[in-house]
């Protein structure tokens, strides 16, 4: 047994190809980004060492600040929407829905499997105003809300909201399934006992379920956070960052700086900022789980 499992040649065959590929394509580029971030211009074109200058540029760059604010708003709205509605749906599956549980669950989960770009194109047409009214505007129009008919994606005030709605619509079912699984794991005795003690409705949720659901809530938040920090695909497909910079995320700004303006050095700084926000934010959210474990 030991000889078979201690076979060094087999270990090498099993691990090395994946290790080399992973190192070359995931790890080396991250380290490489640090190196790039110390240069100005782009490789082969005015490529000069400039020390920390790119990092100082960050504080003076209004576009960066705008993207940071847009990205922040997006994270806040979508995270609350996805996790909150997911939890609400799961509670509904658990306590309200007697029949057709799996049918409703299948339907609600369905948008999760759709390609982001296809969803983006679809919603672009739903919000459309020119050349014809899209679904939303035509429904509003025939219901008599003529003053609500507007270019949903064409104005800065509504574009981000429309984007958030789309992403919540897509992922709500995903979070509801996660929460529903966690609710099923709670022994029914506990809920029964609480009900006998006269605890029901909101109090049942507040004092009995929510502490038990805390670990999975933290997991869901980390998941939602790391998905929303990367904000790129859905916004690219729905609005392309516009109007103006109203829906341009950090990733999209970085992409533009790197591949349209060819400022590879500065774009690397932006890439590192995204990396740090992603890791830092997830660890901070993760802390909530640890602190609750220490309490017990």
């Amino acid at each position, binding site marked *: 047994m*030991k000889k*078979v*499992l*201690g076979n*060094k040649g*087999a270990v090498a*065959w*099993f*691990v090395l190809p*994946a290790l080399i*590929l*992973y190192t070359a*394509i995931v790890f*080396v*580029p*991250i380290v*490489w*980004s640090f190196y790039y971030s110390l240069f100005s211009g782009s*490789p082969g074109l005015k490529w000069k060492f400039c020390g920390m200058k790119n990092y100082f540029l960050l504080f003076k760059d209004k576009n960066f600040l705008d993207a940071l604010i847009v990205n922040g708003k997006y994270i806040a709205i979508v995270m609350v929407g996805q996790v909150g509605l997911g939890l609400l749906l799961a509670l*509904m599956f658990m306590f309200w*829905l007697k029949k057709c549980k799996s049918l*409703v669950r299948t339907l*609600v989960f*369905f948008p*999760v*499997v*759709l*390609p982001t*770009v296809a969803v983006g*194109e*679809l919603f672009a*047409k*739903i919000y*459309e105003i020119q*050349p*014809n009214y899209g679904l939303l505007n*035509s*429904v509003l129009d*025939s219901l008599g809300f003529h003053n609500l008919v507007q270019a949903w994606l064409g104005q800065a005030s509504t574009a981000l909201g429309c984007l958030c709605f789309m992403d919540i*619509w897509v992922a709500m079912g*995903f979070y509801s399934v*996660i929460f529903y*699984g966690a609710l099923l794991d709670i022994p029914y005795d506990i809920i029964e006992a609480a009900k006998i003690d006269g605890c029901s409705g909101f109090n049942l949720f507040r004092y009995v379920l929510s502490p038990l659901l805390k670990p*999975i809530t933290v*997991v869901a938040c980390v*998941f939602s956070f*790391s998905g929303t920090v*990367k904000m790129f*695909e859905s916004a*690219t*497909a729905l609005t392309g960052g516009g109007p103006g910079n109203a829906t341009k995320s950090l990733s999209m700004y*970085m*992409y533009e700086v*790197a591949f349209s303006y060819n400022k*590879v050095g500065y*774009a690397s700084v932006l890439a590192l900022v*995204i990396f740090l926000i*992603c*890791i830092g934010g*997830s660890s901070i959210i993760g802390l909530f789980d640890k602190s609750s474990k220490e309490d017990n």
Partner: protein
Amino acid sequence: MNALKAEKIAKGTLIRIFIFLLCIVEIYPIFWMITASLKQQSEWTLKPAYALNSGFYFKNYVDAWTRGNMAVFFKNSLINTFVALFFIVIFAVTVGFAVTKMQWQGRDAVARYFQLGIMVPVVTALIPLFQIYNKMHLINTRTSLILAYIAFGLSLSIYLITGYLRSLPDEIMEAAVIDGCGIYKLMWYVVIPLMKNGIITVLVLQFFFKWNDLIFSMTFISDSSLKTVQTGLLYFQDEFGGKNWGAIFASVTMSVLPLLVIYLILNKAIIEGMTAGAVKG
């Protein structure tokens, strides 16, 4: 007593209406998309957008498939996704097995090293990767995408597989070894068949990740004969002009339908697979 009963019925009806509305909100856009893809151009100006299609105008699909290059995009997406999935599964099982069941120095360090990648955002590696590919003349090749897909799929897949492998009892392997199984035979005839559930989970999860990839294919591929479905859709409007709604809807529907069918057949496995990343991660 009667009042209580009436209240209960009212509450039940309200809940039913709410659930019904919810299902409508989740499903109606998809339904609308399918009907819209069968409309003629004139229907858009004559009738409101929510009207049903008056006929079945399949020419939209023909347009999208041939003039819109959807046939090519589909082929590319299929090749890229399946080659990548094949290697992801092989690597995930072999590395997962090596770091959980085999005895060698540094295995925990290697496991942790792979785990680090779970949180890495794709955009962080994008710029250097583009430069590396550029120097190696890999831009505009399928290889560039497939390599990136495999590498970025590894961390989570290995993590999930190790979770499944930990619960695999050592006795089964011991019995096989006593019967004279070598390490490679053990892997092929004992471990892989027992890991079926784990492998399905990884396949489902990674299939959707890779099939939906936009950022890599957008960055590394500019040749339209190598574009995938996602990048193809994105540039579709440029090729057809924003006004040919029928063809746009047909192409979007076409990219959605295969997934819809797969989902309706395998919905339980897919729901489990997709959420495993969060629940076990």
